[in-house]
């Protein structure tokens, strides 16, 4: 019994310490920001953007995230918890299109505007569920995919022939699907002679993407390009391709995270379609502020994307480069 009390007491001290470090000033409005997970640099960059914008706007923000991007119910619970803190706005990046709906419904009831961060909510479903979303903000994933296709066509030429591999995200994840879809549709338009021989889920997993690249190279030695729905997988694929001796093979990722930038500068990864998550976070807060002030914003706000290639990075001219973190 004594041990329990001791353990509890030490736990209390810990909790109090944590609590005080995260204490919020009561007088400023609090923005609630619900991420998918923090175990991904993308969301880290979003948070940095949020922080910068919150500082500019002189507001407090309160971040929560699930332990992984598959922990759906914990995210719903975290969402409910967040409502307890009575935020003035809920900026949420739902793990899937349905999980947060009951919580967002509740937010609507409390007259708290809901913002769909990174475009994870499906307007059709939110409509059915009666959830009102103030605006959706994020990179247009299909556009990002399309930009990847444009890059491939530009590099290989319009009439290039050969096989192309697409590595999607987690099966069922809308972001990955959109990117892959955007790539496929655009490729048909700009380089009709290139054929997509496979479009497989890589589960956002670097290792898995590397394996898929390897296996496809075995089957299709004429492979000329690989498009991956995120940078992590692209980094896996490029290493697999290079170690198979395919130095000319074009590998394109999406996100523009720091590892990808390093790889591009090192001349390994050909290009990454940067989503500028920092800008996404920043714009989300800025536009939320507008909404709260009674202003009008677009229902869908697209944050531009930028194709990072060695040339672009070394030229250092594009103004959007400032948002590549």
């Amino acid at each position, binding site marked *: *019994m004594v041990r*329990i*009390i001791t*353990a*509890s007491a030490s*736990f*209390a001290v810990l*909790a*109090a310490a*944590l*609590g005080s470090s*995260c204490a919020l000033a009561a007088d400023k409005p609090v923005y609630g920001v619900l991420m998918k*997970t*923090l*175990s991904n640099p993308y969301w880290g960059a979003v948070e940095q953007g949020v922080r910068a914008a919150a500082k500019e706007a002189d507001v407090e923000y*309160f*971040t*929560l*995230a*699930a*332990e*992984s991007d*598959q*922990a*759906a*119910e*914990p995210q*719903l*619970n*975290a969402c*409910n*918890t*967040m409502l*307890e*803190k009575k935020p003035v706005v809920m900026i949420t990046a739902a*793990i*899937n*299109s*349905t*999980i947060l*709906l*009951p919580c967002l419904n509740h937010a609507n009831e409390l007259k708290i505007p809901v913002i769909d961060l990174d475009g994870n909510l499906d307007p059709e*479903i939110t409509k*059915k*569920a009666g959830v009102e979303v103030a605006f959706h903000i994020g990179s247009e994933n299909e556009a990002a995919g399309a930009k990847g296709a444009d890059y491939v066509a530009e590099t290989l030429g319009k009439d290039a022939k050969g096989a192309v591999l697409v590595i999607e995200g*987690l*099966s*069922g*994840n*809308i972001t990955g699907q959109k990117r892959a879809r955007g790539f496929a549709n655009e490729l048909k338009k700009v380089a009709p002679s290139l054929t997509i021989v496979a479009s497989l889920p890589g589960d956002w997993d670097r290792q898995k993407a590397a394996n898929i690249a390897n296996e496809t190279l075995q089957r299709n030695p004429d492979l000329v390009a690989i498009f991956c729905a995120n940078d992590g997988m692209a980094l896996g694929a490029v290493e697999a391709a290079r170690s198979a001796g395919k130095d000319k093979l074009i590998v394109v990722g999406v996100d523009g995270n720091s590892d990808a930038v390093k790889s591009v500068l090192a001349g390994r990864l050909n290009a990454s379609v940067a989503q500028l998550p920092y800008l996404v976070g920043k714009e989300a807060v800025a536009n939320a502020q507008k909404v709260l002030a009674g202003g009008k914003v677009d229902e869908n706000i697209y944050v531009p994307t930028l194709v990072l290639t060695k040339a672009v990075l070394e030229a250092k001219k594009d103004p959007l480069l400032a948002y590549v973190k």
Partner: protein
Amino acid sequence: MPILSIPKEPFGPAVMTAAPSAATRWRVRLTSATAFRIESLLALAVMTAVMTVAAWPYFLTVSNALNILLATSTLGVIAIGMTFVISSAGIDLSVGSLMAFSGVVGCLAVNNLDAPWPVGILACVIAGALAGAVNGSLIARAAIPAFIVTLGMLGVARGVALVLTKGVPVYGLPDPIVYLGQGRPWGIPAPVILLLATALIAHVVLIHTRFGLYAQVIGDNEGAARAMGVRVERMKVLIYALSGGLAGFAGLIFAARVNAGDPTAGSSYELTAVTATIVGGTNLFGGRGSILGTVIGALIMGVLQNGLNLIGVSSYYQQIAIGAVLVFAVWLNRLNRSEGRRR
């Protein structure tokens, strides 16, 4: 019931033993016949107090209390099934996946097959129970370790759920089902009522029926159970079917809560459920279980997560805290065992 009464010496006439007071009986029942430990209740109280202070004033409100209960409901139902399994010295790692699988099956039944809503409810529970029965049959009759069988089912059930839905949540359920997840009779969220009802029934089953008693005796001394005519194999099939069925029920509650069949639901819940069960005082090595303890264990997990969320502790630290709680609970469990031996 034939009771031997032998009239001759040295047995002598039958004598009534004095019945102890009701209060004593209660206490003995609560703490010795079940594995319930007053420490877990104390731990919950302390944790609540800590969170109240650390997350003032957000934690200690009625709506947050209901939040915690709501957040605990699916986990609690799963952990109740786990209590039966662990009491019988087994383990069921497939519960999280079965929760997703069953929810998806139920949603597809009403959405794609246009089944009436009661069928949807039954489909959830039966899908889970059948998968659980498969677990139990493989464990009891094919003598494959429970750990392996249920680990396999973890993968299979999750995979089937993803295949059935192509990875996309199936949105939209009939209102009566949605009410089970979102309704608030008397202002209390329906899942909370379902959890408490499940706990009450499970408690009675565990303590006051042969099924519950035998589950614990199998965990205690399987040979003795067998020798005394307990149909051990059949019991094991039923125990895992019950665990699967309750996972299915949790899947139903979850689907109703979010109005969708989500193939990614309940990921890694098996570990949280084991934690809640052990924290509640159920003997890790079988023989004794406590539903009351398990509910408290689940609440400890819920309070911990809710409190840490309110404080704004990063999810990384939350995982550390939950892991620490599990190890601490198992340590308590061992402590309890060695005390039992000394006595």
